């Protein structure tokens, strides 16, 4: 597949991975519009990769690595505009606001890396090994973070009942 030449190929990739890329971006930025920008930027950069080949390991993990890096970059750049993880109001898109708030509330007790790990596992459906490659840390660290995150979420879910 060579998405630098083929719009159709890029479209196919977009269709397959849009939700995963968005999930990764949202776990980092916690902002709907910024995450949307991340999605766009990710696929634009992907289009610039000359020899994109799944056989070489340029698969889902590769795309999500790009997405993660883009999200971190945009978050760094627009840090001041992001007040906190609670989105104030978008006016016209109430559903997106609701869903954004819901997800942020779900994940608010987790650290940054724990959020990313959980989203990569649950939403992007990566294996621990793939997550380790994306986040550039050992697999045991990923498992440990995930277990801890789940424990925290269980504990907090119990407190909220």
């Amino acid at each position, binding site marked *: 597949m060579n998405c630098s030449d083929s*719009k159709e190929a*890029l*479209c196919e990739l*977009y269709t397959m991975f*849009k*939700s995963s890329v*968005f*999930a990764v971006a*949202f776990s980092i930025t916690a902002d*709907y519009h910024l*995450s*949307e920008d991340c*999605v*766009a930027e990710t*696929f*634009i950069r992907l*289009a*610039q990769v000359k020899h994109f080949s799944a056989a070489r390991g340029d698969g889902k993990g590769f795309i999500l690595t790009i997405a993660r890096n883009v999200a971190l970059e945009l978050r760094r750049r627009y840090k001041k505009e992001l007040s906190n993880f609670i989105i104030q109001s978008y006016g016209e*898109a109430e*559903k*997106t606001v609701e*869903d*954004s708030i*819901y*997800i942020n*509330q*779900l*994940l608010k007790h987790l*650290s940054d890396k724990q959020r990313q790990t*959980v*989203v990569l*596992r*649950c*939403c992007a459906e990566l294996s621990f090994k793939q997550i380790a490659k994306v986040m550039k*840390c*050992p*697999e*045991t*660290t990923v498992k*440990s*973070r995930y*277990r801890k995150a*789940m424990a925290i*979420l*269980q504990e907090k*879910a119990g407190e*909220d*009942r």
Partner: protein
Amino acid sequence: MKNNDLKTDQDFERELKNKMNELSASVDCFDRISARAFPENGSDFSDSEFTVSDLENVTGRSRSIPFLKWAAVAAAAVLFVGVIPKTAFFYNFFANLSNDSDKLYRSVVSEITSETEEHEYAVYDMPLEEYIKNDVLITPLYSCPFEECEKTGMSVRIFIRKADTSLTNQIYAVEYTGEYAESNIIAAAKSKATFTDEEIEDIEKSSGTIWRQSNDADTAALNIVRIQSSEDSSYATENIVSSASFSYNIFFKDNKISLSEPETTYFPLETTVIYYPKDEGGYFYDMSCTIPEKEEGYYEPDERLWKTSLYYDGSSAFPEESGSEFERTELFNAETDEDVHMLNKANVVNQPDDDENQAVGSIDIFLNEYDRSELLTSFDIPYGDVTFYIQSMRLYSSSSSDVGLKFKFNGSAKSSSISLNGLETVKGSYTAKSEEAIQKEISQLEEERRQAEENASKAAAVEEEASKAAEAEKELTDRAKAEEAARAVEEYNSSELASIIAEEASKVAAEEQAAQEASAAADEKELSYIDEMLKSSAPTEPKTE
């Protein structure tokens, strides 16, 4: 937010995924992507009449080389290096900024924070004085790295790195006041050993280590009974529960040595700890470390396994002397007494409560006898499996199913019971002997027995001779004595007779004399009477005128 339905991890994962998919469904930016990724040919962006280079210089002025900027930086550097250091301000400023030991403390705390966030650790919380007193029960190889503190409310939190369910010897400890928080930490310590993530992964992947189930504790327990007996221990006299033991199994890293392979610096290490109460309080203890993979793999770890222990001001927090209630003494390597003190043992499991941060518990041991229950003794014990050694023979000559021991844990209602019938017997020696060695021992014992019998018969003969001689001598002595006595009696009798005779003779003489005198007197009296008679009967002559 109410998450009433999120009962399991899978529920949560499903919920998160669904919500995220719903949110991402409204994202539609492919047009934007394709516009940027595949711009249309002939697109003319020049209608703004600006080129990129022009956009950079809309003021029309030529862009000067940023000479001034670099000159300013260079001047600042010269000033900083050449001028400022000569003033007192420089020294004061940097002295107040940081010092090496303070920096080291902060790096340790920072390491603890990141390590415990990134990796799996077993966590134990306890008051500082409890760790000082009972460090052997919590981290047998690591004594408490903090000194006693007079202030109340001081606690210790210990972090032990885990590899799946196994413990390692990468340990951190912090001393804190009040509630646990980084701002309340006043001292921190770290171990010399650190495991890389790859090493942890290897341990987790390796097939389960077979721990040796050492019998060393049984041997040491027999030694303890012998010691208690020889020292006439008042504790042992009053208590049938002699000692307690437990195992502490970890993956141990010793940076100094390399075992089987040069690149392997860690190995499974089984530490057996046994302890018994002192009469005056506290415990004597000993521990034996073995490597299960190696035959006769006894291992002696360094005494000091902590790398550093620092207060917040960078000063050392290591105690000058240990405040532990446990005093080490040689129990495992002492020679066993072949004259077996029969022991029984009971295995109990001290389960922690739901709060998994507990490190040390306690146990009360009762004797249950029909309807009666009597407290025998109490021990401090770790959590997990503990073995108690009991001299139940001292109680009963025959076991009874109605008599048993009850173990009550941590002052709670949790308990376990075992009848005396159910106790396992600890026999004398557990060293593995070959059949040949056993036969040799038997022959040796036979020879000794035969020799002893021979010696006994010889001794009997000698004794008999001696008794005969003694008898003969006695007879002679008796005879001599009898003769002497007879002589003495004879002499006595002779002298006595002579005196009697003399006495009698004098008596007779006196009587004769008396008789003679009496006769003479009688004669005289008779004569006088006669005279008187005569005088009275003679005629009277006339008187002449």
